[in-house]
């Protein structure tokens, strides 16, 4: 047991647990942040996708000891504007396209999609079908085509 301090959704937190406990369980079981979902625990399904310092990552596969006091984790709960509550454009487009069915994978889908668009924009290009094919997040309800539509329209507003 040792204390681990880092930022989650703008708030500094300290948890006392084993170094090797993966961040997904620190978030869900110890901090009660349940937006990131469990779907496999081996970085395959991507249902837990969140951001670490602005980049998409999967907390099921990162020990808590790998993050430090200056590292900032953003989960789906922290992606809307903290002060105004305004949704992120990706969330808005998710609503406009009524993407979610059961909704279980959707927090991870949205977090992955935001990072994917940011990545394309950082490379000075628009999101393409090839980029969309690279999104590994599984959706067992099969919402893929609405995800593709939502990402494309959100990208234009990001």
């Amino acid at each position, binding site marked *: *047991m040792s204390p681990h301090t880092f930022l989650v959704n703008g708030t500094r937190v300290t948890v006392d*647990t084993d170094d*090797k*406990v*993966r961040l*997904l*369980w*620190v978030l*869900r*079981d110890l901090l009660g942040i*349940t*937006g990131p979902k*469990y*779907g*496999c*625990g*081996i*970085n*395959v*399904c991507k*249902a837990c996708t969140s951001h*670490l310092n602005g*980049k*998409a*990552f*999967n907390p099921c*596969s*990162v020990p808590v000891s*790998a993050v430090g006091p200056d590292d900032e984790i953003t989960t*789906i*709960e922290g992606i*809307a504007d903290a002060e105004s509550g305004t*949704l992120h454009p990706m969330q808005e487009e*998710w*609503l406009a396209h*009524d*993407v*979610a*069915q*059961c*909704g*279980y*994978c*959707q927090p991870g889908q949205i977090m992955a999609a935001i*990072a*994917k668009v940011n*990545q394309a924009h950082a490379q000075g290009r628009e999101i393409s079908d090839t980029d969309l*094919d*690279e999104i*590994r997040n*599984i959706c*067992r*309800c*099969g*919402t*893929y*085509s*609405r*995800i*593709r539509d939502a990402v494309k329209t959100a990208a234009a507003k990001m």
Partner: protein
Amino acid sequence: MAHQRRSPRRDGAPALERRRFLGYLLAAPTLAVAARLGADLSSDTPAEAAIPSLPGPADLLDLGDALTLAAAPTSGLIGIQLNRDGTVSFAVPRAEVGQGITTTVAMLIAEEMDLPLEKVGVNLADARPELVFNQLTGGSNSVRSLYTPVRTAAAVARRRLLTTAAEQWKLDPATLTARDGMIRSSAGHSASYGSLAEAAASPRTEEVSTTLKAAEEFRIIGTPTTRIDALDAVTGRKQFTMDLAVPDAKPTMICRPPTTSGTVRSVANLGAVAAMPGVTDVVEVSSGVAVRAETFGQCIDAVRALRVDWGPGPVDGESDASVEDKLRAATLPMAVPPVLTKTIDAEFVFNFASNSALETNCAIADVRADRAEIWSGLKSPIVAQEQIAAMLGLPIPAVTVHVVTGGGSFGRKLFGDAALEAAEVSQAMGKPVKLMWHRADDSRHGRTHPMSISRIRVNHALGNVVSYEQRHTSVTTDFGHGLGEILTAVAAKLPVGDVGFSQTVFLLSQSNPYNFGVVTNLLNEVPLKFHTASMRNVYSPNVVCARELVVDQLASAMGQDPLTFRRGFLKDERFRTALDKAAEVGQWGRELPDGMAQGIAFHCEYKSASAVLVEIDCRPETVERPIRDGVGGPRVTRVAAVVDAGLPINPKGLEAQTIGCVNDGIALALTSSLHMDNGLPLEASWDNYFYTRQWNTPPELEVVVLPATTGEPGGAGELAVASAFAATAAAYGRATGTMPTRFPINHGTLSFEPKPTVPPIPDSPVDGLAHTF
């Protein structure tokens, strides 16, 4: 009570007497109304019916009808409550697992009450044993069974609000209007529904009759509507079972055997594992060894550390090949000999497939000496409640079962496996538990859609089909959830009862839409002790895929195009309309490069119809595209899917369901199956079980929801799985020149390295930061 008559129509058509329906005013502090779930609420026809002793063919009485009829004799009422703030509350006796039933029901209430949709709150009812048959979510039956009762209750409420306001204002109710949650008079009075909630409350429960809106008055039904839980879903606020904070319900997992239903002989290190960091309890239970800890991560470590001596299970010797042999040996013979006609004989093999949802099996249980409380995503909660009560030795009313929104179902949540297990573990530990199956457990020990073989013989002569025979042979599908109630669940476990129930489901769900002369469809089941269950669309995907591929062969034998042939032989104009629309939207017959082709297929069920056109790319450069930890293979590039749901209530929801069905159908045709190996599937996660992914999904997909045809809502949540599967298989056959006969087409190649079975679950990686983007 005087019957209302509609004004004569301006077109001179005769005025129809509006049908009246029975509802109830309930004694309550604010307005509460109810209706009985059942087949017919018409006031001049008392609702009474029973499960038919002899099932008729599916096109006269289908599975949904049987479920609806089975519901009729029960006395349970479903009630709507008007709150003082003008909102209404309704607890739907169904599970929401992503299919959108809460949104659809909210639309029905909003429509009939003339209330804005956002004022309607719908949650999931706890298990209500008095509803008997009436709390099963399955057979695409929810909308069909709820459509009239929910509207009836809402109409009773609206009428009561009108009469209450009329009394207060001393006006004739006929001069008042109800709209957007307000009652108004032409004289300028107005009152919100909320302000009338107490005055409209009934001092006693009484039966009343009411009329329902006619279709031409609908303002919400038929309008594309966003899901009522969409905002919660995109903000992470939507809660599933494992997101609930039940006091002291700590993470719990099970160490499971290396073969299906294997048993614990002994545990070598139970004490040492109990002393591991974070671990609070380790106990043997019927399914393995249960571990409870501060985090699921520590549960995973403890499960992996357990050294268990496992006893055998009942199917340890069974693998794909042995099961296939047993099925082939059990196939029923054809009745019609191939004489004086041309004959097509075909056989298709459909491998085991997984109905695993993204949310693994999970439940919270808090079992005390004299009571138990359970939380889980359950489509058959009454059965779960009664089984748990029996297992714990508690009276049924002492067991409260909360139905939680499910993270997908696809048939998996028909059974309360995790709820029963959680109750057993909680009782054994004497503590509340939050039980979750690891993905590897869910894939290997969760229920599967069993392997089946479909044989078809068709005799044709002079451009006519003389006979069509299909013999479907399957490993027994467990229908132990029955019709949602313990008595039928028990009956379904008896050898005769189970076969009878499976046959009933099969016969009530399979109808042949073509004029094919003498048609017989027979099911034979081979009882092997695998964990099985229905999967989305149950028997239809395999049965219909086989049929539609033979239809393509027939078309070819008669020198006809697949579309032309189907148009000629479909029984119903409604079917042809759907097929024609798919052909039009999908541009049937358009020119494609070599190695690409179109396929088209048709399926009708649940009083609905669907036609799907698929374009597939089987060119080597596409098939061999590299995919990390996944499979590429042929790519479906374009899909046109057409749905005629009789009366579309929420076209946006129907479109969503159809998109899902298409991706399921593509998976069944091309990529997703379980490889059964010595009593256990080799597949242990989504990098082994290849459900459709973004790199497999069609970049172009158009769904057309046809306008109302029958005026009655049909089922559609599963409808297009069969037609999409069949169309994909047909397209593949046309692109490659060889009709596929074994599904999915990639089953013969194992595209992954199987994970170990001991320990039963893999460790979580630690290199996640090497894969950020």
